[in-house]
């Protein structure tokens, strides 16, 4: 078992996709709106709304094209004056958001105030708050419910248009991968209430209080009656984080730990046989613990809580993952660590930082694909969206993708550039079989990010532009004078509206 910091890094992105599916309902084009009618249901659940997201799907295959329309529906609920809580995945990549009340046929335009992709939460407001003035917000409980206690999930799942209520019990409370980002892991509550696409973002209630937000199910054939909800503490942390007007994301210890359960390993480290402590196997050189911890140290305590050899601590009367301590803190907070090095105990304090290199493997949202088209060669930066859309299988590309964070390859190339495809033209007609490989150099200059690429291509030195690719012995050689003319011609023929887009 390897855990890192407060997010659990999944070594394989496929695993997460298989294990969980987010609960966004597909758009239903034929939606017969029932006439507005007031009843007791309407009053009880007046703060629970249906969210319709007209979204766009960026096109990584033809990145110069506009995005494709997509979208779906989910649930949200009022938590304060003109504040609606929902899942990030319900409102991601949106171009237009509409909120409708329980028995309300009127569409109300909404906008995103804050969105947190790492914990799949978002806060919305209405452009015109008046329709929900006077509606009582749902009170939030920021503690964890008891196992086997009854919960009620309310929302607008598939299977009908009107509000739906399902009932179940709390089955388990544990760290789970959050499939929206694909790389984060937080506390989640497993319930056996039916939670289906469209339920996403809806409240899960105990009595009159909200104990969680429905967010994902389990699509594997091996499990049944498994739904997951984001628990109160995670919701409370999100709301606390945005109080200063920005969302600062989760912070991370940025270390890899290994359980210390082998007696020989404990003996080698001169540790007593008391079942405590985890091995520090890797310390990210730009992360929170850089310069403080080193490989081979043993973490004994975090904020005064003794760490068991499996990485768990006693916290609030429960055995929880030690990362729960980091989970509840914010960037800039300090955290106390006691560790064992060379047979002696030492104590230190670190300041929590956010780690970004792991975003290489994350699903990305609200992003316009970056690209450069030159002489028909299409260059794009490597990220998970690109890798999965284009199904890149080149070993060197996968090596950078897999080890970008874990082996700190980000230091070698901060934004690996992929030659994704060649738009055929006389100038590049012999460049076959090179699509999907990583750019190494241009005229001898190492390409570490997209801006290197543009500056190298713009340098008007020499008769040739020589591009080398990682793992490909053959250089791509372009006649500089011909390449410029070809670029114009190719972009016109293939409808490449702009030769490049790079984020400022």
């Amino acid at each position, binding site marked *: 078992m*390897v855990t890192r910091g407060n997010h659990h890094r999944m070594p394989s992105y496929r695993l997460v996709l298989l294990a969980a599916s987010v609960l966004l309902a597909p758009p239903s084009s034929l939606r017969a709106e029932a006439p507005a009618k007031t009843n007791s249901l309407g009053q009880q659940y007046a703060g629970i709304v249906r969210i319709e997201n007209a979204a766009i799907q960026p096109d990584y295959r033809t990145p110069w094209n506009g995005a494709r329309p997509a979208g779906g529906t989910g649930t949200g609920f009022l938590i304060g004056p003109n504040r609606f809580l929902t899942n990030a995945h319900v409102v991601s990549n949106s171009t237009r958001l509409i909120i409708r009340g329980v028995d309300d046929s009127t569409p109300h335009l909404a906008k995103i105030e804050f969105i947190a992709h790492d914990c799949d939460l978002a806060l919305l407001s209405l452009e015109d708050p008046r329709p929900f003035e006077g509606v009582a917000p749902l009170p939030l409980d920021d503690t964890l419910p008891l196992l086997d206690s009854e919960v009620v999930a309310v929302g607008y799942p598939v299977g009908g248009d009107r509000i739906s209520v399902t009932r179940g019990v709390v089955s388990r409370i544990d760290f789970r991968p959050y499939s929206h980002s694909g790389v984060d892991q937080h506390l989640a509550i497993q319930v056996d209430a039916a939670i289906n696409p469209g339920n996403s973002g809806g409240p899960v209630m105990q009595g009159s209080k909200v104990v969680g937000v429905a967010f994902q199910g389990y699509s594997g054939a091996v499990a049944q009656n498994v739904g997951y909800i984001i628990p109160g503490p995670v919701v409370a942390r999100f709301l606390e984080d945005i109080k200063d007007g920005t969302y600062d994301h989760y912070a991370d210890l940025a270390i890899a730990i290994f*359980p210390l359960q082998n*007696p*020989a390993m404990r003996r080698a480290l001169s540790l007593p046989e008391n079942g405590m402590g985890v091995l520090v*196997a890797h310390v990210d050189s730009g992360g929170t613990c850089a310069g403080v911890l080193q490989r081979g140290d043993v973490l004994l305590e975090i904020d005064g809580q003794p760490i068991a050899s499996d990485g768990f601590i006693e916290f609030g009367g429960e055995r929880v993952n030690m990362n729960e301590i980091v989970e509840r803190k914010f960037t800039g907070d300090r955290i106390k660590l006691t560790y064992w090095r060379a047979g002696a105990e030492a104590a230190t304090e670190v300041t929590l930082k956010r780690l970004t290199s792991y975003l290489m493997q994350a699903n990305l949202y609200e992003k316009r694909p970056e690209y450069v088209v030159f002489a028909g060669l299409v260059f794009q930066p490597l990220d998970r969206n690109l890798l999965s859309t284009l199904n890149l299988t080149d070993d060197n590309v996968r090596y950078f993708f897999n080890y970008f964070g874990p082996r700190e390859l980000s230091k070698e190339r901060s934004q690996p550039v992929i030659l994704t495809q060649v738009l055929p033209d006389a100038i590049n*007609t012999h460049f076959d079989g090179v699509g999907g490989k990583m750019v190494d150099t241009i005229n001898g200059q190492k390409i570490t990010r997209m801006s290197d690429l543009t500056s190298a291509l713009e340098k008007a030195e020499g008769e040739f532009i020589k591009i080398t690719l990682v793992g490909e012995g053959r*250089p791509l050689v*372009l006649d500089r004078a011909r390449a410029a003319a070809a670029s114009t011609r190719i972009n016109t023929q293939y409808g490449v509206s702009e030769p490049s887009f790079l984020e400022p």
Partner: protein
Amino acid sequence: MRHFLFPALGLLALMPQLAAASETPSPDKSILRVNVSNQPHNFALPWQKRQPGSKQGLGALLDGGRVLVTAELIQDSSYLEFEVASSGKKLTAQVATVDYEANLAVLVPKEKPDDFFTGLVPFPMSGNPPQKGDRLEVWQFESNGTPVTSPIAFETARLGRTFLEGSYFLQFEANGAVNYREGSFTLPVIRDGHLAGMLLSYNSNDQVATILPFPIIKAFLDDAADGEYAGFASFGIKFAPTLDEQLRTYLKLGDQKGGIMVTGVMPDTSAARAGLKEGDVLLQIGEHTLDARGNYQDPTWGLLAMGHLVKGAHPVGTALPLKISRDGQPMELTLTLARKAARDFLIDPYVFDRGPRYLILGGLVFSELTRTYLEAFGNEWRDRAPFELVYAVQNPEKFARDGRKKLVFLAGALPSQSTIGYEGVRGAFIEKVNGQVINDIKDLSAALTRPVDGLHTIEIDEVPYTLYIDAALAAADNQTLLPQRYRITELQKLE
């Protein structure tokens, strides 16, 4: 008649009784059924073999009681026998020579054949190259032993891949209808009473037969004749065509015609020893000029890929002059054809007929990485095997270092007393053990004789980077748990 070889047994007294050489070969007298019991080693559990299976093919009878088959037929065989199709008479056989790259093997009787070969007629080892449209015949049997002859027409010769990745040899293509009979893994192809080749595959949709041709068979048999088989040479380059005018100008080829760009030179190969370098343009091999795709005009077969000049046209040891252009300057080099055997690679491209080398410590299973190990993960091995192992197979040069002979890796941990907590560690390369650099599995075995303070220290290249094993506990697991519960009879195989 060629000398009859029994290299392993040296039983020259067992000269079989063959019919007079003047008799013409015929299906019932010149081809034999070859029944094979195959049993590959289990690379995931290297101390045992997999469940046995069976294959049946046809072999061509050569002089001296030798029978020619494809190597694929007898790969990982546990038992072999010849069968006379008409009479059903059987004889236990064994492999005399096998070349998995060329996909050829010679089988001989395991013991004194008595009168098994009496009345049979071997194929003469000669023949003229076929011309387009020439009639070839595919010989096989009905299940009752009745001969079946299917005529096909020779179309062309070209280089094609054998069943091993990256192994290209001269092949014939022929057109016509061939109906496969039961148990016909590879089929002899005959032209005018001579063996023209062995049918490798047949596409029934477009009725094209692919044939391993007699020039390769002859080179294989000539090589094996002295009892010491040298094998076919390996060139050792990667190359790219130079069709692109921009590339030709960049390479300063001037008004040179043709030539291919060398884009990689593998260490310890003919090319490396000849002094070929990345970026060179290879213009001529021997007397043959290369076009921009790397083809030459073969006097017999017409336009052919240059690979045939290295593998097939000339035996190992032949010196061929090369003409190259380096940085626009003409140069001459000498290519002495040499073979790089599978075992001489950092990562063996294939391992057949034996299991992997391995060592088990307490429950930690160490092995030497081979491509065959990864292929045991199934067709999707690139996705299913541990990524770093896959990466190493595709990029061995990134893992080469001085003295390193093989890549020793931790395949996994069998649950035992000494491996508690290590169950999830797998697919990691071994750097050092007890302070010793590990260059092959023998180094590992030697290093494990020297634990420090009762602990083995195993340095790997993945989290947690160092594993410690209690030497006494591991010895106890080795003695009791592993043999009793996992039925591991051999805790290591180093050869």
